[in-house]
């Protein structure tokens, strides 16, 4: 168990900077998730922590010890790879025992550690099998077991579920969460899947272009994204964005585009007035959009009218892709009412849950200024 401190870490290949000024403290026993699109630098950062990539600049401390120039095997860490990287000629037992043998542990101790890890990961019946005789999920558990036997201070997991099918990914995700609760060890997990990030992480780091965009708890990121990138990346289906003009009318502030008209709530309106922006990017999550016909209140403001283009039935909810002029709005409706492509629909927004981003750089204009924001 150890905290990991990344202090102004940089990684460059020649003139190309892959990771820029990465500054982060990962707490002891924390489950930290690095998430971002391909090429954002998340795996490179993890590999620098592992010692598989040289650090161009900055300091990396594990358990208070600077490890920039320490070899991977001496960092007291273990890593689980996306493709499992199991030795094909060794049995499950031998794969798990390999690192312990290299450390010259006594045979009895190796048996004890492997047995314990196998019990935790329910691998006891598979110990005599070779990797090719295992399913994807079993191989992934062996890869976890290989890391587990070393009892490391920090677990590094590089997209460990990406090679699994959707159903297995969900069950393995639960197993990893359970394992973390049981082991109470620092885990750093890299993924491009925001659902994995949201469900597993104590905190999430969202990265783009080698820069930390935002670090926070899943709900902080979801409710109070610092910029348009984070707002669009976190959440499934993603947030709707519209380019709107801000207009004053009788002391009320409205956000409008060709097909949308929304009255901005008082608290947000004051902040936007103070920001002095005339044109902004308005953001609203699909679950904050409602079918006017389904609301009981008569005193409602219709934000947009449109035609249903696509209906996605997900069981508990229904996703509607609604065409409103040039805008395509995705709305999440509770199941119950049936919708069909071609239906006309009036949409109401829960404007209290609106987001506003500066057009020039995508930064949130409301972040940190509303109650509850970080």
């Amino acid at each position, binding site marked *: 168990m150890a905290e990991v401190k990344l202090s102004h870490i940089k990684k460059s290949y020649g003139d190309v900077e892959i990771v820029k000024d990465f500054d982060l403290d990962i707490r002891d026993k924390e489950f930290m998730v690095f998430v971002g699109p391909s090429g954002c630098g998340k795996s490179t950062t993890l590999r620098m922590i592992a010692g598989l990539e040289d650090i161009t600049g900055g300091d990396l401390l594990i358990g208070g010890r600077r490890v920039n120039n320490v070899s991977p095997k001496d960092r007291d860490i273990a890593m689980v790879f996306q493709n499992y990287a199991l030795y094909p000629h060794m049995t499950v037992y031998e794969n798990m025992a*390999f690192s312990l043998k290299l450390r010259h542990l006594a045979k009895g101790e190796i048996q004890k550690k492997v047995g314990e890890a196998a019990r935790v990961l329910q691998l006891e019946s598979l110990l005599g099998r070779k990797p090719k005789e295992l399913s994807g999920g079993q191989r992934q558990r062996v890869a976890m077991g290989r890391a587990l036997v070393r009892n490391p201070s920090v677990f590094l997991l590089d997209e460990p579920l990406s090679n699994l099918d959707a159903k297995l990914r969900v069950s393995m995700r639960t197993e990893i969460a359970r394992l973390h609760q049981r082991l109470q060890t620092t885990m750093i997990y890299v993924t491009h899947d925001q659902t994995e990030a949201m469900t597993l992480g104590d905190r999430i780091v969202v990265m783009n272009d080698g820069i930390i965009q935002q670090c926070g708890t899943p709900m902080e990121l979801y409710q109070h994204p610092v910029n348009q990138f984070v707002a669009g990346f976190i959440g499934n289906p993603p947030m709707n964005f519209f380019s709107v003009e801000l207009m004053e009318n009788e002391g009320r502030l409205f956000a409008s585009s060709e097909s949308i008209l929304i009255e901005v709530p008082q608290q947000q309106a004051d902040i936007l007035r103070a920001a002095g922006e005339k044109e902004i990017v308005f953001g609203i999550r699909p679950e904050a959009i409602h079918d006017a016909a389904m609301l009981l209140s008569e005193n409602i403001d219709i934000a947009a009218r449109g035609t249903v283009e696509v209906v996605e039935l997900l069981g508990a909810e229904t996703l509607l892709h609604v065409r409103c002029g040039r805008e395509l709005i995705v709305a999440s409706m509770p199941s119950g009412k049936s919708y069909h492509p071609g239906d006309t629909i009036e949409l109401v927004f829960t404007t209290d849950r609106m987001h506003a981003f500066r057009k020039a750089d995508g930064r949130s204009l409301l972040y940190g200024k509303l109650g509850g924001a970080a």
Partner: protein
Amino acid sequence: MIFVNAGKKDWAFAYAMVAPTVLGVLILNIYPLFKSCYLSFTESKGFGIYKWTGLDNYVRLMEDPEVWQAVVNTLAYTVLSVVIGVFLSLVVAVLLNEKIRGRGLYRTIYFLPVVSAPAAVAMVWRWLYNADAGLINYLLSMFGIGAIHWLTDPRMAMISIVIVGVWTMVGYNMVLLLAGLQEIPKTFYEAAEMDGAGPVQKFLHVTLPMISPTLFFVVVTSVIGGLQVFDFIFMMIEPSNTAMASTQSLVYLFYKQSFLMGDRSYGAAIVMLLLVITLIITAIQMKLQKRWVYYE
């Protein structure tokens, strides 16, 4: 699966596409195989006339010491050339898989013997091996080593042939192994490094098992190639050479019997013997692969 709902035209087109290859295999491989098998049970009377003699050729073959010497020579050449050749190919491939300066140039140099004409290669090596004026003996003389009769000493001739065989084999096998090495995901080495493995352990526990399917292919094809050795013996050892008996391979003996002595039926029996030996060795290799070849 594409042709599940195909019409007659599609089938005709498909057959037309595979016909050249199928015809080639039938005419150049399958027919000669059966023809040789038939000939091995006959006696050649000349002018294309063959008389059925049953197992006579095989009885003669069993009692012919020249045949068994050729079997020993062929197996000796195969074992030596495959063991040394595959080992060197692997070493060269591993070295040339590293990021070293001039890697492309080295790869080209090692591959050059593969694209060189065997006759030209043999001529150059004959000169190198020449006991009186050869480069090798000249270099050895600088260290006070007397002239070695590379191609005429019965104890040395086989080794000389093996050296040439290995020299021509390394480039081709190196390319295959290099392709296999480049297929090994980097993460396997990284995982081994995190486990605390050094270079030797990485080679033993990552490189070797991961490259074993390619290595198996290289061994099988090299063994078959070794069993068919002919050209270097033909071009470097003259029929009157005292070392001929200790280098003569089964294919060379087949050539001698069939085309120098005109006994094609007996030559066919020798080829059948080689076929049986090749099949047995390949079958053993296929059986043994389960113990050392690892498919992911």
